[in-house]
């Protein structure tokens, strides 16, 4: 066993004056003060952010949001935000409460697209939905059993004389009649010229009209319900991803 190295003192320790004790204690005191200041600052930041996680349209305005216990509308969770109308509507109200007006506008537009989609589905169902029994041929001759075009007219999907455009499954495609001639895949056009330009160049009254370009075609041939579905699905997916991230951050904080 190693001793203190002093035979004369019988291996007993000897006192040594600590010249650095004062400066050392000063450094410790200063560091503790800094730590305390940082802890206070972090606590204040967390308190301010509590219940107001980032939204689809960006973080809310700093200091504008009311404390979580005084909120009228909470932001929806990731799953809740996927519910059409409810999720986006609730998010819009919460954004409005946070005075995040651009976010509220985006979410209100998303809720409106949900309404358009829901209305289209309900209206389609009210008109008979899909034609279950045949014949499903698009247009039969007047002396034959009525085909799909006549049924679509009788049910109110198309007006008398209104050309119906096969916007998704083309009429020339190999898709069966019972599928491609169903109401969701038929877009009522504005007229023969409109319909003709969806298919290519069209001559009417001696004037040759060019076909729609891809952007025009997408706009003109896509039915309202499909446009609303595009917006709705993209918006809700984006919102759910944003909410999932916000929920994860919230969990991290609680740990």
């Amino acid at each position, binding site marked *: 066993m190693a001793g203190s190295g002093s035979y004369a003192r019988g291996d007993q320790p000897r006192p040594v004056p600590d010249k650095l004790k004062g400066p050392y204690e000063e450094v410790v005191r200063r560091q503790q003060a800094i730590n305390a200041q940082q802890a206070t600052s972090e606590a204040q930041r967390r308190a301010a952010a509590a219940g107001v996680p980032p939204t689809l349209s960006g973080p809310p305005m700093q200091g504008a949001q009311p404390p979580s216990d005084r909120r009228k509308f909470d932001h929806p969770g990731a799953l809740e935000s996927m519910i059409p109308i409810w999720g986006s509507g609730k998010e819009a109200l919460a954004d409005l409460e946070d005075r995040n007006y651009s976010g509220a506008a985006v979410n209100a537009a998303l809720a409106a697209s949900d309404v358009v989609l829901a209305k289209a589905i309900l209206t389609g169902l009210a008109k008979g939905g899909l034609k279950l029994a045949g014949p499903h041929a698009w*247009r039969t*001759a*007047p*002396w034959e059993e*009525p085909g799909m075009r006549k049924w679509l007219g009788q049910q109110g999907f198309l007006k008398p*004389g209104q050309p119906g455009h096969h916007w998704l499954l083309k009429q020339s495609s190999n898709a069966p009649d019972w599928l491609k001639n169903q109401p969701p895949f038929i877009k009522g056009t504005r007229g*023969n010229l409109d319909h003709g330009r969806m298919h290519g160049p*069209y*001559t009417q009254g001696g004037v040759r009209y060019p076909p729609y370009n891809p952007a025009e075609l997408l706009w003109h041939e896509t039915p309202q319900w499909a446009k609303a579905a595009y917006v709705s699905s993209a918006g809700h997916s984006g919102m759910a991803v944003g909410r999932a991230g916000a929920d994860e951050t919230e969990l991290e904080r609680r740990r």
Partner: protein
Amino acid sequence: MREPDLAYPALGFWKPLARDGRREGERFRGFASPVDLHQVSQGELARGLLDGSEIVDNAGRRFLVQDVRRVGRKTPMWFQFLLALFGQTDDVVHILELDLVEGPPITFAEVRQRVCAAMDRDADEWLEAELEAAVERGRASEGRGPLEAAKSAVSEAKTVQEMFDGMDAVWPR
């Protein structure tokens, strides 16, 4: 049941029943086989397809429909339930028995004239079909080409079969 042997294809003249209960102008329907004549949807029966109609067979004989009886359904029960669920019971197909009596003789000239008159009543359908076909061609049609061609084919036909063949040939597809 009184049903003579008909020579097919046959042609039925009928007056569709409008929503207000009145009868519209005369139309005609083709029956390519006995199945076509004896299996008819509920919606077409409700519109009066066979009720009091006249049938001219390929031999040029005229028959009057005295009575129509529903003796069964071709549509399976489960499918009827599905149709009812979606409010599409008009598509339920009934199996029919008909009482037909031979009526006074009819000249084929009269048949041709009545068919042409019925085609004129459906001129809109001809025009719409033609405009749809024009979309594929890329050029709007001028006038009533196919309808006039069909009437011309009808006026040259000597049997019901020739009449339908002539109309089929010019029907825009």
